[in-house]
């Protein structure tokens, strides 16, 4: 689904030393030595067969999102362009698609909307971020350092990086509402980005939103570049070596506050590789907010069955045992020095819906899957964390932290 790239593109993830994580040892497509993607691999039949399976899950997921849109759970006029054969999904799946999208939308919206204001320097807010961030942002900046403070009037530039974007439409949805970041980068494997680029390039609904006459395709149609939106192809397991240079070539700026989104993505790569991404972000970005949506609780009866069922679809979750709980999801960040981290499961998110919103979605269709919903929702979490590099002057750092804390508040 949006962001589900990890689950459908493993065959394109080169690097033999890492391939063992996908499929059973010796399963088709995991033979050692299968290096970077080359056209000849298309003729490798087991490989192609596996691709098809994985692509199937992607289609399945986009269909789920469209189902939620068509029933009125979500408002998104762009999803339909990615679905050839719409189909109505069961209520439980609709509700889950809705909740996960809504939750990440909320972070995105707050991140885009929040700005540095004079009041933000002195007021203490944030109820959900438990740690030092609140205290730091509360500290009044010393008058001697105001030279480095961000000028409120200018408005602070921000970036968004969607890791494994799949067919996600968030950039378009938000920009259509007049909400956009300075730069929005999407990254996925070439096969996914190529498909996405075609849809975007040939539909006015998308090009109008991008609104850049210089919008152009690149790298054999696997990438798209415009002023504020870039679709890039690459392998997240080579984040530092290959993704970062690509980002930088398109104007990615490590000094800007940046939101990183990972919707069911990190969990599909080996913990060593996902950790490398978190490490890079934590040590190189002046300020960043990281939002992760993925599965947890692999060892209880439902979780074990989930892994078995996914395995039957040749989908593995190499990351789930490294970060199997809410606590470990938070520690993924706090142990690396991030200022604040919080993880909640989908039940918690569901409970946090306003009575009015709950009433609205309850009226959309019958929902008689209460126990299964609770089980399922117990196995998915949203985790967020933010950091601001210590080696930067005050009050800028406090301002940045405050900005990020606001983006995750409420």
């Amino acid at each position, binding site marked *: 689904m949006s962001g589900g790239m990890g689950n459908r593109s493993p065959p394109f993830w080169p690097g033999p030393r890492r391939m063992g994580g996908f499929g059973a040892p010796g399963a088709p497509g995991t033979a050692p030595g299968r290096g970077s993607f080359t056209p000849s691999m298309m003729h490798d039949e087991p490989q192609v067969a596996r691709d098809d399976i994985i692509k199937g899950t992607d289609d399945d997921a986009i269909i789920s999102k469209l189902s939620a849109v068509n029933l009125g759970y979500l408002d998104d006029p762009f999803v339909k362009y990615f679905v050839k054969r719409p189909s109505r999904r*069961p209520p439980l*799946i609709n509700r889950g698609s809705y909740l996960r999208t809504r939750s990440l939308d909320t972070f995105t919206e707050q991140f885009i909307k929040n700005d540095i204001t004079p009041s933000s320097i002195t007021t203490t807010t944030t109820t959900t971020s438990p740690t030092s961030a609140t205290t730091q942002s509360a500290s009044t900046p010393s008058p001697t350092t105001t030279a480095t403070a961000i000028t409120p009037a200018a408005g602070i530039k921000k970036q968004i990086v969607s890791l494994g974007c799949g067919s996600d439409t968030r950039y378009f949805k938000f920009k259509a509402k007049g909400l956009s970041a300075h730069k929005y980068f999407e990254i996925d494997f070439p096969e996914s980005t190529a498909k996405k680029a075609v849809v975007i390039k040939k539909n006015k609904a998308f090009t109008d939103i991008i609104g850049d006459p210089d919008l152009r395709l690149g790298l054999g149609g696997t990438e798209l570049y415009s002023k504020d939106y870039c679709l890039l192809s690459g392998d997240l397991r080579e984040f530092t070596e290959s993704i970062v240079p690509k980002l930088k070539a398109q104007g990615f700026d490590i000094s800007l506050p940046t939101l990183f989104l990972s919707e069911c993505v990190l969990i599909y790569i080996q913990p060593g590789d996902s950790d490398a991404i978190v490490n890079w972000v934590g040590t190189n970005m002046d300020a960043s907010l990281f939002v992760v949506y993925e599965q947890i609780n692999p060892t209880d009866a439902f979780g074990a069955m989930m892994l*078995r*069922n996914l395995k039957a679809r040749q989908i593995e979750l190499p990351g789930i045992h490294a970060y199997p709980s809410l606590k470990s999801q938070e520690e993924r960040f706090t142990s690396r020095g991030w200022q604040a981290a919080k993880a909640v499961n989908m039940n918690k998110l569901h409970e946090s819906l306003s009575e009015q919103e709950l009433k609205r979605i309850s009226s959309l269709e019958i929902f008689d899957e*209460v126990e299964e919903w609770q*089980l399922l929702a117990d196995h998915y979490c949203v985790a967020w964390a933010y950091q601001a590099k210590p080696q930067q002057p005050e009050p800028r750092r406090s301002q940045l932290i405050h900005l990020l804390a606001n983006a995750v508040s409420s």
Partner: protein
Amino acid sequence: MGSDLDRQIQTLLQCKIITEAEVKDLCLKAREILVEESNVQRVDAPVTVCGDIHGQFHDLKELFKVGGECPKTNYLFMGMGTVARYVFSVMLSIEIDLPGDFVDRGHHSVETFLLLLALKVRYPDRITLIRGNHESRQITKVYGFYDECFQKFGSANVWRYCCEIFDYLSLSAIIDDRIFCVHGGLSPSINTIDQIRTIDRMQEVPHNGAMCDLLWSDPDPDSCTGWGLSPRGAGFLFGESVAKPFLHNNGLELIARAHQLVMEGYKLMFDEQVVTVWSAPNYCYRCGNVAAILEVDSNLNREYRIFKDSDRSSMNSRTNPQREGPPDYFL
């Protein structure tokens, strides 16, 4: 009963459908039997009490293996769960892609319901079927039974025949005047068993009122106030302070009900005076739960038998599971 019926039962036991004409005939016969039943059907112990099957046909056969074949064992089903819910709607779309390779998983609500109905017609005194909240037009439409009927019979006729039968199903049962069996639970509109007897049940499950509550309510172990709003949008949550007086006033010792998935197959509440029995193992091939049936002997001693999903329905035995559409997750 004729050999035709026995033949149909044999067909259904192999998870094969019978003809539309046979379904029609079966439903007519079932109607004659069910119309004579009370809203509170009297059942004599010994009897084996089961919860919904949810179209998990092979697990129903597993249940018969564990509990004994009908008519040898006397059965009471507290609802059939005539839909496999989301599993089914997902798989339908896959079937269209892959004709001819679509077998035996989860979406056998038609075969399951018809088998139970055929057994009812064949052995009316050895199997009691009471209505669950899924035995309704609205739910079967949303959760796939309608589509399944259409898919398998080429028209909605079978769905229509089945829905007519739903309206005839009894609403509850009492075993030896002591154990009250109902699909969901209690209703604030009902204080006595006699009040249930006066309900006009020949209708689609209403959105509220006594009949709706019996099929939709859930016990709430955390309740201290008695009645609460149900997250399902129908029925109520009922607490201990409601359940115990109901039992006492009606001379009962236990409320047995289904309706809620419990990972351990059954769950006792309120000082063992209310029990949930869940009979669909690894529900929707996703939940990883075990299932249970409740055996009540002639002295009303109770024994719970736990069982797992049958090998045939287990994902493990699948050679090509993706073709058969494993359950949905958010990916």
